[in-house]
């Protein structure tokens, strides 16, 4: 049975004020069964073959997308279904934010000149009838960018869900999919680790590096070979308050402690959102590198921590600046 609660008012205020947000512990990494695609033909559903396995949407890699196989007759609705383990490490799985990386849905909508609606839903059973709740919905009308689909405000009420046994990503189009199929790289449904402040200045949330080799030919002509661009490598220097901060209402040191535990000491990837209120779609799928958490306390209740992040592909930069 799924239980619900809501993010605290302090968390909600922090989101609205674009304070740094980490989303950790993807519930989809603890599964009670093998994920699968479902195709809907009118009111009838059937399991659909996938060109690439559905579990690739929950494997910690966003650049290996899963996609369903083309159905005959072609259909306009696919579900990517996950059976979640409801007792992860003795705790219920906890979902307060969702993000979808490595998809092609907006550009696909443009190519098809059709509207694609994406929903994340949970339910008590694979039938998705009882206990059905829609966590987030995005309506895509086409564009040249496939930014991550992110919601930090589930059900538009900052709802937190615990113990959800089934989750699906529903992809509905106003026409049948044929030719290019919808793809999803990674679905991240995790818990919020909200900090009360923004990183110390100077801070560049779009810090990135590219791997380009340039060489000159004998006449001086330049030939450049690009392997990747805009690989995020953000470095945050953060002043954390130990204890409940009177101004923010949040205990950042405790948050960082819990965040590091969620990452299993820095081993697990997570989601970094610099501006959760104004631009949640600019989320990045990252890892902590070096994988360390060291708070240098310089006052009785103030400490400084350096957090260095490396971004998993597909990178945010090329989507922000196509």
């Amino acid at each position: 049975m799924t239980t619900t609660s809501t993010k605290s008012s302090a968390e909600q205020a922090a989101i609205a004020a674009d304070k740094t947000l980490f989303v950790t512990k993807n519930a989809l990494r603890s599964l009670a069964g093998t994920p699968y695609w479902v195709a809907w033909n009118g009111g009838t559903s059937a399991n659909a073959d996938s060109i690439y396995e559905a579990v690739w949407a929950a494997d910690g890699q966003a650049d290996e997308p899963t996609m369903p196989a083309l159905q005959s007759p072609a259909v306009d609705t696919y579900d990517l279904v996950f059976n979640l383990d409801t007792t992860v490490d003795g705790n219920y799985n906890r979902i307060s934010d969702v993000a979808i990386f490595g998809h092609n849905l907006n550009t696909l909508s443009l190519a098809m000149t059709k509207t694609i609606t994406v929903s994340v839903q949970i339910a008590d059973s694979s039938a998705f009838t009882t206990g059905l709740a829609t966590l987030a919905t995005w309506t895509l009308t086409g564009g040249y960018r496939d930014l991550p689909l992110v919601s930090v405000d589930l059900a538009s009420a900052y709802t937190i869900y615990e113990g959800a046994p089934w989750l699906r990503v529903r992809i509905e189009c106003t026409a049948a999919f044929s030719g290019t199929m919808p793809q999803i790289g990674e679905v991240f449904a995790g818990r919020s680790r909200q900090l009360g402040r923004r990183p110390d200045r100077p801070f560049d949330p779009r810090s990135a590096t590219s791997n380009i080799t340039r060489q000159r030919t004998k006449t001086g002509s330049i030939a450049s070979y690009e392997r990747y661009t805009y690989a995020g490598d953000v470095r945050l220097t953060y002043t954390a308050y130990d204890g409940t901060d009177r101004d923010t209402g949040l205990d950042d040191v405790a948050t960082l402690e819990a965040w590091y535990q969620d990452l299993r000491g820095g081993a697990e990837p997570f989601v970094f959102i610099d501006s959760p209120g104004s631009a949640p779609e600019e989320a990045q799928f990252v890892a902590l590198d070096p994988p360390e958490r060291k708070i240098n306390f310089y006052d009785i209740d103030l400490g400084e921590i350096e957090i260095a992040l490396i971004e998993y592909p597909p990178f945010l930069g090329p989507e922000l600046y196509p």
Partner: protein
Amino acid sequence: MRSPSAAWSLAARSEPRRPVYLVTFRWDSAAVEGTDQLTFASRPGTGYPATVTDVGQLGGQIDPITREMTSPRTTIKLRRTSAAKALVTGRRLRNKQVVIRLGFVGLDESDYLTVATLLYQNQIPDEHEIAIVCTRSLGVLFETKSKMLFTNQHPGPAVKSLITALGVPSTLYASADFAFDADPKIGHWNLSRHRDPRTEAWVPLQQQDWEEKSVRELISGILQITSTTLLENGDGVARFSRYDRDAAAVKHLRRKDIVELRPIGTVEDLFNEFTVRFGRSKGEYLYKVTLEDSAAKLNYAYPNGDPFKMPQTIETDWLNGVGSLTDADIPPGFATGGLYDSSTYLVVALAGYKGFSGCRFDPDGAHTIPTGAELDADHPAYLMLTGSDARVESGRYVNDKPEIIKVIAAEFITPTAAGGSASTPPDVFAPDNHTYPRLVKFTIDTGATNGGRSQFSSSPDIPDRWRLGATIVADVTIALDWIQNLMTRSTEGIADVELRANIEHGDIETTDFITFDDDVFLDFEIDGATSAITWEVTGDEPRALDDSPGWVFKLRRVRTDIATPYVIVGQSGYQQPTQLAWGDPMTFTTGDVVTTTTGEFLYGGF
């Protein structure tokens, strides 16, 4: 040359170049993604898992002397992700196809260039990666043993027969490439490697039989003597490519196209004397033809003036065109037969089935020669005459002095009473019981230099007569072509360079001829490479993911100018080892033997 699409070429030269490898593992020819194959990419955004981290060496390399192509094992590395693990754990992949395509970000997949089609051999996992080891498709098959025999066969169909006998699907070789008329310049060539148990005294090659060999050895033997390479193109289809020193360059690289030039050496593989040993009889190679470049030997003489002799010798099972001179033109006034200095033709017994060029007569019927397989002025054959006490000059026998004659027509003739022999039906060739012409009449190219006689000699010398019954006639057409190819190329050494160009030059492929401009290259009388110097691409390799990207070409210099006439060297034919004669014991005038004080005989000088 490869033929990339215009879109590929444009993407390959547009700044910045963003190369992408697509590696497809295919286990069923239906090739439906996900069902029959899985494709992985070297970067995201292609719709395929971005799991490829490295594509190892793809290109092989041709040895310019042996024409043998050595192909490496290629290792493809995949990140150890769910996708890569699913590939390996889900099916048995050994001997399945691996297709490697190269394209660029934004390029339509249909425009990707297929650079290699390999066979999956093995996987080596570690904690971070899975290394997939692959080989060239045909190489795996060639270790099978075979004792296939060939009578009067052109090298192209012979190689094809060997390939098809292995069960290689027709989709893996370009059948038209192997037709005898695919290369019009050599349609008249002929080989033989057949069992011939004859033991008659007049038959030059006796008890010919052949041991079992691997198909690789058999094919290598044909490729070497015919200056041909068996190559696989990007689709894994084998083609038959002959080295033609007169072929035109397909591309010229300018300085702005070249990222790096690395000369390996300019006087590499220097040889100035070439010998082909052929004609197996009772297990021995009885005959040989040798040409030398004596001027080159002096050019590279040692400090004391001794000529620098650097020989190269091959033995081949495939040249068995050895017959005997018979029933030749009898000029008026001469009572005995033979090939005279004024003769315009010669007749050779056994030429009808021993693999003489221009003599690929259809057996068992009208004995016609296929169109394109005949001799003519542009497609001559070269016959070498030799034999003990066979050459007559000024009334005496001259041994150790073979003669090469240029002939431009061949026709089978029915034996007549000329020379005293009775009419004889065509020979029956055992064990197949096919009939081939017994006698072939070769017309001498009297319009050629020296009237077609005494070819390849710096001082042409036509004998008075070659005797019937003693003169051996060997077809050295293919052997001389091999020698000439290598002689023109290697008497000054075959310069060796490695050139890295930008990736848009991937239309150049192995066996192409190219030219390039560069200031670094130096050679005798050459300061800088220009379009006047031609190079053979002996290996090519895309380097799309390297720290030093581009397309790397291994180049060996091509030469076409024949600087000096080549001289046929020494004798051909089997020679008994020189026997040292012991002197007789010394004797007194009385006849008694002279002995030492210990009673041992004393012998005279040797």
